[in-house]
């Protein structure tokens, strides 16, 4: 099973790093769409279906929190899992992000393993790329 991923970050370098980590982590990526801020992300989502969104918080034009709010208000987009990768590390911002429905929060700087682990937990894919039917099986996330 392959996945469509939307990476939202105003840094080209960070988007490239996240894309690389996803591709070397054993995920079968069909499409990797990139956006530089929340506005671009919403435009991309109007034209493409994605299985997971990986987003930064501090971005120009529309930041990650505004994007999360807009996703939450949209009945077609609200169920897309979102993982935040950000330098934001205050307890309040992490709480706010989870209150807005994010499935994972990774603080920069991060190790590739941290991204990989949360992606496996969120997308529910085994090391072989098969969809995990039993989300309760903790061993499925070990690697």
């Amino acid at each position: 099973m392959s996945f469509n991923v939307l990476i939202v970050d105003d840094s080209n370098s960070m988007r490239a790093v996240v894309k690389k980590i996803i591709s070397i982590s054993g995920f079968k990526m069909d499409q990797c769409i990139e956006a530089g801020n929340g506005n671009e992300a919403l435009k991309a989502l109007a034209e493409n279906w994605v299985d997971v969104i990986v987003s930064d918080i501090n971005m120009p034009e529309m930041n990650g929190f505004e994007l999360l709010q807009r996703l939450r208000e949209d009945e077609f987009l609200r169920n897309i899992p979102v993982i935040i990768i950000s330098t934001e590390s205050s307890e309040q911002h992490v709480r706010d992000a989870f209150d807005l429905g994010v499935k994972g929060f990774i603080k920069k700087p991060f190790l590739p393993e941290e991204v990989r682990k949360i992606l496996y937990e969120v997308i529910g894919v085994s090391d072989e790329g098969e969809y995990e039917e039993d989300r309760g099986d903790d061993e499925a996330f070990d690697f």
Partner: protein
Amino acid sequence: MKENMKKIEEMMRLSISEVFEKMFFLFLEPPDDDEAGTYDMESSIRFDGSMRGEVRVLLSRDMAKAMVQNMLGLEEDKIIPQRVEDCAKEAVNMVCGYFLGRFDSTRVFTLSAPVFREQVGDLDLAEDACRLDFDSDGRKAGVIVAVD
């Protein structure tokens, strides 16, 4: 404030070291010669919260190149100025964010957009500021934290 600057200095030392290790695979050590301060570019960011100020990351050209190469897995001939700028901005963003999280994770800080300069500005330190210099295989990196 002096006591606070000591704390700031120690936390910044840990923060920049961890960012460079994790994201750029570069190990920062104290400089062992008199060449500290020979930098070619800098990126800076302002922060505002329970304290307010600025963080500047200073880089030698070969340090910036190594950061781009290591972070993006690029060959040297594929490094373009835009990549260097982007990497330097991301570095100061991460260093400042990580430092503030260590300093006080119970408070929310607002960060400005990072700014990149192809030359290094004034290195004279104000009273409430500290500067740290590092070396990684001859490549130079430094950081200045100034509190308003």
